[in-house]
């Protein structure tokens, strides 16, 4: 069912029903753009002002908004959990956990060794020193590995970009050369066709010319014979 969408008709409302209402209602198209926030700012404000002063449009827009709100009740299917796609991410996460596990294991081992023979303060100090050393070592190792990984990533990125650009250029060149070859073939075909057409015209013209020549020759012979006959006839009369 298609309805009138010209200005002056606020969608489903009947403007005749309320004679006191304003007559210049925005079109339904504009209300749709307004509802979905696709209007320029100044026009958006104008429609908002109109809405505040026009009960007809306000009713219609409220009905549309209610329908839109109901639509939201049907939510989309829950997204599947996203998997980590980066090898580096997986590797670095694994490394961090491995480093933490190594630190905790060595701390536990040291605590166990010292627990039987030393005071709690000495154990705590020894564990703290050991943990601190282990953490520093792990941090240094992690930083070193990280730098190495980043450099590798950068190198592979440059290499892959270079390969990609080269490949794209090759694709472009092949596309252009294919296009050029196709153009040449088209021109050649057109020239051949033109040549054949000219040959046809030439042959036909030549045939017509020969026909005219033969006819002319025949006519000339006839005329010559008639002249001879006329001369003979004059001689007889004399």
């Amino acid at each position, binding site marked *: 069912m298609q*309805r009138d969408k010209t200005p002056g008709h606020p*969608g489903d409302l009947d403007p005749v029903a309320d004679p006191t209402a304003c007559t210049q209602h925005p079109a339904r198209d504009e209300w749709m753009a307004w509802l979905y926030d696709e209007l320029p700012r100044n026009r958006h404000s104008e429609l908002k002002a109109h809405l505040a002063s026009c009960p007809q449009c306000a009713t219609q827009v409220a009905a*549309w908004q209610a329908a839109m709100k109901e639509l939201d009740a*049907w939510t989309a*299917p829950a997204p599947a959990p996203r998997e980590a796609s*980066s090898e580096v991410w997986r590797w670095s996460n694994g490394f961090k956990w491995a480093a933490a596990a190594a630190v905790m294991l060595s701390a536990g081992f040291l605590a166990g060794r010292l627990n039987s023979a030393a005071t709690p303060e000495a154990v705590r100090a020894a564990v703290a020193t050991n943990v601190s050393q282990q953490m520093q070592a792990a941090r240094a190792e992690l930083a070193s590995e990280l730098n190495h990984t*980043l450099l590798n990533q950068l190198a592979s*990125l440059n290499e892959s970009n270079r390969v990609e650009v080269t490949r794209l250029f090759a694709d472009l060149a092949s596309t252009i050369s294919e296009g050029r070859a196709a153009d040449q073939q088209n021109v050649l075909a057109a020239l051949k066709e033109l040549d054949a057409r000219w040959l046809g015209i030439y042959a036909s013209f030549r045939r017509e010319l020969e026909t005219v020549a033969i006819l002319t020759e025949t006519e000339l012979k006839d005329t010559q014979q008639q002249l001879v006959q006329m001369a003979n006839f004059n001689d007889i009369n004399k």
Partner: protein
Amino acid sequence: MAESWLPWKRAVPPDHPAGCGDEQLMWRVRMSDDPQAFAALMQRWEKPIHSLCARMTGDVHRAQDLSQDAFARLFARRKSYEPSGRFSTFLWRIALNLCYDELRRLKRRPELPLDTAGRANRPDEPQDDDAGALSSSAPAPDAIVAGEERAAAVRAALGQLSEPYRAVLVLRHYEGLKFREIADVLDIPEGTVKSRMAEALSQLGRLLMPALNERENLCNETKPRVILAI
């Protein structure tokens, strides 16, 4: 904002196909049948296309098949992709045409889903066993039932809209396309898209009016009882 230099904070490595634009990936698929590029496109677009198919057909299982068909058709028609056009328009159009075909097929040979009243036929619910439903933050059972009823009413109302109206409404309201983009996908003027949207919303409002009124009445009736119970 600049991307973090820390590898584990970077969602997608820059050399991965997922770091490229859709058009670039599709160009790679077209020119060299690049499987990685196609996989990246699928990963990126699987959910929106599945959502579109579910909204159009109202059946999550059928939507699964349709979205797979859409990607199969995308690959089959990769040579007809024009790089000057937007990839999304190309893909939306393929998926919509498949939905139209499926709806016409269903119209010719209507099927009654086996699980019309079951969970599996509701696109708004996760298909896996949802452990979160058992947690204390989960909504109350009556709220879940009420939400399901509202969703079912909306789904049924959408199913009663004719295809042109439904397509515009789904693309704009659920998939978030601009009116201009919908006009490109459907190959119709933008004004027509907006008119169809207005008509679709009006029809939907009329279709949902009984359910809305009924719910309002129910709320009015149950309120005093709740107060007494407290």
